């Protein structure tokens, strides 16, 4: 039998060995990449050219002067309103389904389906549904909206509709779990007090699912700020619908302007990291013991 201190030393050593690969991966794929991203943002690096020059903050100046970037930033933030809308519908759905009990399992499946569907296929089919001339949507509703056109708002609302459509189910499942934790006695007490269905919803349900709402809104915003496929496949690069990540892609990977794209990616990273930090701080989502 080994002594306690040997055992302890052994355990410390093995504990580090077991986490070695994730740590190596972290330094390789995250830390060093971020350092290089920062370096790119200070140079005029272009893979076609043989030499690279240091240009200071010129890329940031160009970035802020670029109308497309400003548009992408505005769009990215504007499109986030699909997050609370999707949550709201998800909550209503979960309240309805909870009252129906397990009977409506098929409905849960249906509403959750987009979460497991390919974002590529979904965007392609939605682009077709939203087509202003040949699309099913205008035809069914008997309206004439150029969803994919050059207007400032139609393409944004098309993206928002698609995102609400896709996000309702995830919110529904999470809220259902939350609702199951609310004791039935709360509602019974409210019934005795003669509370209306709306009062019960806003006074009991909404406050008690707040942790889930908070989780959903933060993860929704973080995911929304990284949206790429909607801009590329649904908006097809339409400047009224592109996001910051699309901007980084089109300027960096597509047009070889690594400097400007890296500058944008650093700003995006900073904003998202800040928001995630707030999330980590405010909720006990992560417990470190």
């Amino acid at each position, binding site marked *: 039998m080994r002594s306690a201190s040997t055992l302890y030393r052994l355990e410390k050593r093995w504990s580090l060995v077991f986490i070695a690969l994730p740590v190596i991966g972290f330094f390789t794929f995250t830390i060093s990449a971020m350092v290089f991203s920062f370096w790119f943002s200070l140079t005029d690096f272009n893979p*076609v050219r043989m030499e690279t020059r240091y240009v200071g903050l010129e890329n940031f100046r160009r970035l802020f002067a670029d109308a497309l970037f400003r548009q992408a930033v505005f769009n990215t933030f504007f499109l986030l309103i699909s997050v609370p809308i999707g949550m709201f519908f998800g909550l209503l759905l979960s309240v309805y389904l909870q009252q129906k009990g397990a009977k409506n399992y098929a409905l849960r499946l249906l509403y959750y389906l987009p979460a497991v569907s390919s974002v590529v296929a979904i965007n392609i089919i939605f682009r077709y549904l939203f087509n202003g001339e040949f699309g099913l949507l205008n035809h069914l509703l008997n309206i004439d909206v150029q969803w994919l056109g050059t207007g400032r708002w139609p393409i944004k609302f098309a993206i928002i509709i698609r995102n609400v459509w896709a996000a309702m189910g995830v919110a529904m499942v999470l809220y259902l779990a939350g609702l199951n934790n609310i004791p039935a006695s709360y509602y019974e007490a409210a019934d005795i007090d003669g509370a209306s269905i709306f009062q019960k919803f806003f006074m009991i349900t909404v406050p008690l699912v707040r942790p889930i709402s908070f989780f959903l809104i933060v993860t929704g915003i973080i995911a929304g700020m990284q949206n790429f496929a909607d801009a590329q496949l649904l908006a*097809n690069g339409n400047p009224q619908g592109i996001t910051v990540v699309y901007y980084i892609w089109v300027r960096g990977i597509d047009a070889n302007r690594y400097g400007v794209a890296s500058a944008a990616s650093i700003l995006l990273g900073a904003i998202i990291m800040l928001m995630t930090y707030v999330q980590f701080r405010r909720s006990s989502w992560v417990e470190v013991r």
Partner: protein
Amino acid sequence: MKRSFLSIMIVLIGLILLACNGDGNDLDDQGRVTISFFGWGSAEEQANFQTLVDRFMAENDDIRVVYSAVSADMYMRNLNNQMNNLPDVFYIPDTEFMPWADSGRLLPLDSYLSEAELERVWSRAISHYRYDRDSFTLGEGPLFALPKDLGPFAMVMNVDLFERIVAAKGLDMDRPDPSVPMTFSAFADMLESLKCQLRTVGGEDTCEGGQRIFGVTHYELAAAIYSNNANFFNDDATQQTITDPNFIEALQYIANLHLVHGVMPSPSEQANLNGFQRFMNGGGIFSFMGPWDMKGFWENINFEFDLIPLPVGPAEGAKSTAWVGSMGIAVSERSRQREAAVRLAKYLTIEEASQRMAYQLGQSVPNIIDIAEDDFLNNVELNGRQIMPLNKVMFLDIIRHNAHIAGHPRPTYFTYENIWFDDLFEALLPVFNGQITAQAFVNQYATTIQRDLDESNSYLN
């Protein structure tokens, strides 16, 4: 349990290695040198090029060519990916030519070519790929690529649709002249009188209550600008010239086709179905086509199509001027098999076999002048729909220039970066939507485009 897991892992890792490793094809079997050739195109075009490459190998038994290709929209990214180990021979689109020639990654080809070889080819096609790396000047200096083709983007009409509408409306109208261009206003007037909601009732065409037919499916920006004796910038692309009245006039002409005359889809409608597809679907009478569209038009549509001269603007000295696209075939400066690589590049661009195949497959106008002016114009080895467009001399006139007709490279050929053009195109939408006049637009956009050009030119010093 443990052992089966281990064997699964071994199989897996083996699979990954197989999937990830290319075949090590640097082998020299039978004393042949191996060169790689990288291009783009549809499956059909790839099959055609494989045929051509096979023929080349049959004629040059000391060379083995490994040909690979990706779709056009993936091409530049794929080429960038191979930057550290470029293929020996590869396509370089003329819009990307300048940064590549400037970087020194392309092999200068002059020493491998004789005067006699070059004289047989359109001189514009050759000078297109000359670049002086010291003065940053296109059209001068060493030859850094050979032309795969010269592609005039001409105006095309749906002859059947035109005649059906003329008949349905009882108009007294001839087809547009095949060699003398119409003016901007005459063209717009003609399209207005051809407005039609085409419906067929009992075999009879009427122009009421049916599908809306557009006069022209879209309009190429450069085609209008160039045809009104204007340009986007001066000769060396350092100074913008969009404030030139001729430029403004041409811009407003395009906008008015939708806004005033109602004969062209709005920008939003163009997003629903692009002009080219609308033309293919029979939704428009006029559109634009390059020689590379011939094959698709032979096979995928069933109406008669033909070329007409692009409308010309009212400005003094204006000629009907189409943009002329081109694809270069370049040899990597680091190729270890330069001589073999150049031989393949020459075979694909300036030798008879490839140039005959190019037009017979409906891909391009031959680079060799004799073949273009004899075989191509006289439809040698072509039959059925392949003789279309009947007015194919229009393609040649745009390349050769004449009293009325001319051609000019795309604006993005002249600039180091192309972002300025994408940005301009997006910024123009309010003009085409009628929210702002062309005059007001250029006044407010002149500084932006100048800044964009300056940024592009900042690499050239």
